[in-house]
């Protein structure tokens, strides 16, 4: 059945369906129960599944992730919510030293089918620690898989696929898209596999590569470029670790130009990895160096000037222009 839903609603529906399909799926985090989460992503789930499956936790991020490790060892599939991106760091040790390594350490005897949901990114006018993009820190950690959705349809399917995955998945939710747009969701459709990227707008002149909250900006940039007669292809990475480079490389071989854009700091960010791989794999197809457009290498600024920090379509188009200047 098809209905028009926001990303927030789609995630809620996806979580509900995962809990219905498998009674080992548990949700845990601060305020996820009675309140339904500060973004209401888990709204109504405790009422329907009970306090043993939708667990309001003490206010302790390491505790949430660390106890979820034990639950996973016992055969459960915990889905934990970190309330905001900037609060994940108290749990960082548990995530990178335990969650990521227990399958390896045990030579595959202990599975860690855990999902760590993190609302991430800026653009909502929040105070500090509420607008960060820590994806590279997790994508740099072997043992973790890192994905991010950019729209309600992906949100619905990807959260279920992440929960069904036997590996730990850091699931990044672009919080400024939660309530931004609605899309038609057909819950009988066949989704793309989880760890795949996808061309979301075809084009011939240059490739824009993005993910999560920046896909919308990239699409707007492509629309604007089209009015000036320039055809931009847009790739939504969707998976950051592992990276699915095949659609990206195919695209760049056709267009000869690539611009990678994300909200996170440019230095050592996902864009650096994508640019390096493009250079390694299709150097002779390139008409210009791969360019990056990202957040500046500053701490996330005060919200009154966050629009200057976040890449917008003009900065993306400026980079496209520079690519054509080579």
């Amino acid at each position, binding site marked *: 059945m098809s209905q028009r839903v926001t990303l927030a609603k789609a995630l809620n529906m996806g979580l509900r369906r995962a809990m219905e399909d498998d009674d080992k799926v548990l949700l845990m985090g601060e305020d996820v129960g009675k309140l339904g989460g500060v973004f209401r992503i888990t709204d109504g789930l405790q009422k329907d599944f009970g306090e043993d499956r939708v667990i309001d936790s003490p206010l*302790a991020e390491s505790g949430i992730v*660390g106890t979820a490790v034990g639950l996973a060892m016992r055969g459960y599939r915990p889905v934990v919510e970190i309330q905001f991106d900037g609060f994940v760091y108290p749990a960082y040790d548990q995530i990178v030293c335990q969650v990521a390594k227990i399958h390896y350490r045990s030579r595959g005897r202990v599975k860690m089918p855990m999902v760590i949901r993190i609302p991430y990114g800026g653009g909502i006018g929040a105070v500090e620690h509420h607008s960060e993009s820590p994806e590279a820190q997790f994508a740099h950690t072997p043992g973790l898989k890192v994905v991010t959705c950019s729209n309600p349809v992906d949100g619905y399917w990807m959260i279920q696929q992440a929960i069904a995955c036997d590996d730990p998945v850091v699931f990044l939710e672009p919080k400024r898209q939660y309530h931004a747009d609605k899309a038609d969701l057909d819950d009988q459709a066949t989704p793309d596999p989880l760890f795949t990227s996808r061309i979301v707008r075809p084009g011939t002149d240059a490739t824009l590569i993005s993910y999560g909250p920046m896909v919308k900006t990239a699409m707007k940039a492509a629309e604007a470029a089209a009015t000036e007669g320039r055809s931009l292809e847009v790739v939504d990475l969707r998976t950051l670790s592992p990276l699915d480079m095949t659609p990206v490389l195919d695209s760049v071989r056709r267009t000869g130009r690539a611009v990678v854009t994300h909200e996170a700091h440019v230095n050592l960010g996902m864009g650096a990895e994508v640019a390096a791989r493009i250079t390694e794999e299709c150097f002779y197809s390139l008409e210009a160096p791969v360019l990056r457009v990202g957040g500046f290498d500053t701490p996330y600024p005060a919200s009154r000037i966050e629009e200057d920090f976040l890449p917008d379509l003009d900065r993306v188009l400026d980079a496209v222009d520079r690519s054509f200047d080579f």
Partner: protein
Amino acid sequence: MAQQSGDGFGPDLADVFGPAHSDGGPELVQLLTPEGERVHHPEFDLDFSAEELRGFYRDMVLTRRLDVEATALQRHGELGIWAQLLGQEAAQIGAGRALRPQDHVFPTYREHGVAWCRGIDPLQLLGLFRGVDHGSWDPEERHFGLYTIVIGAQCLHAVGYAMGMQRDGDVGTGDPDRDAAVLAHFGDGASSQGDVNESFIFAASYNAPVVFFCQNNQWAISEPIERQSRIPLYQRALGFGFPGIRVDGNDVLATYAVTRAALQRARDGQGPTFVEAYTYRMGAHTTTDDPTRYRLSDDVERWKLRDPIARVEVYLKRNGLVDEAFLEAVADEADQLGATLREGCKALPDPAPLSMFDHVYAEMTEELAAQRDGYAAYRETFEGGVA
């Protein structure tokens, strides 16, 4: 009236908690004195059969031998490092023998005696310290987790696992073969870690069936217990909302009795307990450590008088519960174990280099497979003596 402390913030700590006792204080649960004299306790007393007592003795002697051999193997370059347990045999054997098969243990990296009780092959412990793997035993097979090196991290895993037992309906059923609990090990240094304190909060909030078993061996590498806590550790439990008990960690009867009671309380659905086994690390923190730099030999000499094995031996002999043949048999068994470990350790094969790529993920990624295949092809180029 208690004198107020000089800072004006209430009574002096000594007024609240009593004077510090280097021997563990009057609250220490003890069933066998350092002199080998059987004493009784109103709450935790048990009757022990001669067979049980001989079993404790054998376990401790063999565990000590494992520790001595491993230390020697490290000195000979066969192990990269070894975490010694010398002096902590009673704490570990008492706790380990109090477990039921369905209980689950979350160890640190020093629980060689508990591993022994769970039937883990000591060579598997050596493998970790030799560097051939990160622990080769199956944590579920004998309900004994892999060693955890990050201090205190496993206490949260223990609580989560215990929450899983609750959800599985394996707590408070009254069926002794079903009801289960978790035993979480950590040390006095770990008591300062956030994860340990968070695990107390989660365990209390969810009434999780977990026993926190702290071996207070007085030293966190070079940092004394005074650097970790201004009050006796077991008294912290009250602040988290569950009972704390201090037991003589060099008394295997007492650690067994107290842990058994705490585990039963957890299995019955009455929630967590903190057990502080008051003991002393007679050796170094690990074989890289030099305790002569930071502690007095007088202290070590004093603790030698509280040796956990000697007091059981005295008790057994004095009460005619052992003969020379038994003691010789145990000594022979220890010699045999030592020989097995010496030979077995050296025979542990190095892992195949390409095995490093295995089990990073349950579902291998294409990019990692490409790295593995690339490295395999690179190694191929060195065949035939080119390397």
